[in-house]
């Protein structure tokens, strides 16, 4: 694979997807400290939002330590060269949140829908485009749709005004061939001026390989997080991606040693547990389950005595999509009840 001379925009996820393993409790000081490091390392775009996007503050997804406005305001004031992005899931956040983010100085808005439901993004993509924002359509759980299906969904988002479409491997399920087929299908139908992006998770350790596969097929925006801080086994680790890109001659504009220092000195000290492929994160990737379900399933295991792995497998079997965190406790209670019924029956 010769990718020498290709130019990509790396998009940092540490302060947004990284909110998941931090249960949305990153402090303003920590956030500013990491943002400054990323900015100085040359990362061009940094996402700042509740893990579940603008308006994600809730019982269902977790209440953050600070509001979206406080986090965004603090990071916008900190960065010198980097631009700031925000995530929005229609059905959770609204155009009101989008306008708030724009007023605070957010440059890029990413409107995220499940990979078959792009038509719920029309209001939000349209509004962002009207404001002149860099507007991205973000197709989540992309393994659950075919390359052709994704191409149609991406085309819809482009028609609403998106200037970049993402293939988002929310479950960390895809293998490089899956990524290639999906990016290629999008590239074939989108306007040549429309960019394509890839967002990976590392549940099967494919973060880097999948990102390279995406670049090979024409993706120019790649998501990654310092030290991989993100849902499940984390996102594509930024410092590793930068090192690999440097070896392959892919231009990122990010300083390898500076970004690896950010990971080591600023991110690792704030993590609550190692971001690694434990058996539950592995299950996400193996069974194709939404990444941010992980900690909820672990908590349900503690409370209801049903292994997180079994809860996750059941959620996967039932086709649960991003945002259905409420179904984790519900499923755990049902499974605990069934288990009890089984024991009683055999006594």
């Amino acid at each position, binding site marked *: 694979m010769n990718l020498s001379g290709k130019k990509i925009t790396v998009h940092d996820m540490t302060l947004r997807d990284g909110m998941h393993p931090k249960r949305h409790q990153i402090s303003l000081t920590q956030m500013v400290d990491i943002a400054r490091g990323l900015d100085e390392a040359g990362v061009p775009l940094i996402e700042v939002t509740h893990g579940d996007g603008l308006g994600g503050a809730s019982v269902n997804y977790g209440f953050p330590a600070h509001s979206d406005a406080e986090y965004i305001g603090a990071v916008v004031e900190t960065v010198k060269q980097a631009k700031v992005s925000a995530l929005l899931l229609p059905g959770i956040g*609204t155009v009101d949140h989008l306008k708030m983010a724009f007023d605070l100085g957010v440059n890029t808005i990413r409107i995220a829908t499940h990979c078959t*439901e792009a038509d*719920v993004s*029309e*209001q939000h993509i349209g509004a962002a485009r009207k404001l002149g924002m860099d507007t991205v359509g973000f197709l989540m759980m992309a393994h659950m749709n075919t390359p052709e299906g994704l191409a149609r969904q991406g085309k819809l988002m482009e028609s609403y005004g998106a200037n970049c479409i993402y293939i988002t491997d929310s479950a960390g399920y895809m293998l490089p061939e899956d990524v290639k087929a999906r990016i290629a299908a999008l590239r074939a139908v989108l306007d040549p001026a429309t960019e394509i992006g890839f967002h990976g998770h590392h549940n099967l350790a494919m973060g880097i390989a999948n990102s390279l596969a995406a670049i090979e097929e024409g993706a120019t925006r790649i998501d990654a997080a310092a030290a991989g801080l993100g849902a499940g086994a984390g996102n594509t680790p930024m410092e590793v991606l930068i090192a690999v890109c440097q070896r392959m001659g892919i231009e990122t504009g990010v300083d390898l040693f500076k970004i690896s220092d950010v990971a080591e000195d600023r991110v690792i000290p704030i993590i609550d547990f190692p971001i690694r492929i434990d058996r539950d994160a592995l299950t996400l990737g193996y069974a194709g389950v939404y990444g941010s379900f992980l900690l909820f399933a672990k908590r349900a295991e503690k409370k209801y005595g049903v292994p997180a792995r079994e809860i996750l497998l059941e959620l996967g079997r039932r086709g649960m*999509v991003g945002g259905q965190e*409420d179904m984790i*406790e*519900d499923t755990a209670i049902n499974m605990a009840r069934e288990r009890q019924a089984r024991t009683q029956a055999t006594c």
Partner: protein
Amino acid sequence: MNKIKCALIGSGNIGTDLLYKIKRSEVLEPVWLVGIDPDSEGLARAREMGIKTTADGIAGLLPHIQADGIRIAFDATSAYVHKANSDALTALGVKVIDLTPAAIGPYCVPPVNLAAHLDANEPNVNMVTCGGQATIPMVYAVSRVQSVAYGEIVATVSSRSAGPGTRKNIDEFTRTTAGAVQSVGGAREGKAIIILNPAEPPLIMRDTIHCLTDKTPDEAAITRSVHAMVDAVQKYVPGYRLVNGPVFDGKRVSIYLEVAGLGDYLPRYAGNLDIMTAAAASTAEAFARRMLKNDKLATV
């Protein structure tokens, strides 16, 4: 028994499903179904049932209101045209049940506040949203026991049951529902989330209600109140079912519901459609019973 004559405006999923429910009513008679697309399936079904139809929108209906004795109209079009529709209809003395998120009239969630609206004889009442009809009775079931600082609802519907109106106006769903979680449900702060799930076979509508109470929840009283409210909703939505809960966790009270429909127009999984139309129909029936009683009084 005499029936109150009704017009249904909007021939999409909601209007067509509503038609089946009104057709079965003992006190309501559907006379008109109004659409804007002459080829719509809803209009075709209505014609087969012997209902008068027009594809000229509200303009096609207005000249017939008086001659056909229409007293109640349901608007299942969109928030953008509802005000004009409602003004034209109420000017002719027609009571309007609004199934759009326009909400120019007060919110009506039958087991919570229908009685108050009947007494006030409101010219226009709004049915909130499908998610609101499914969840607000539960928020109220908690808040009538003790004060609720925060109420949050998560409504998950199958992709197949979410029509183009819902998809284009998803913000209106979250805003309207959140507002009614407060004003009708009785939570000081309200939040609403809607999720579309494309699984096949389609999943039955799921609704989760999380309340944060001010003081430690009275578990026994809340559990009793929730069960009583489930019974009240089941009277007009038989497929309304408590799956789990109430779960108590500190000051959090969580209630997990499933709402199956009657399968009138869309199949049973579309409980979201059913609870909206069933709530509208039962609201209209209550108004109709008043009208029939008053008519009798007037003629005596």
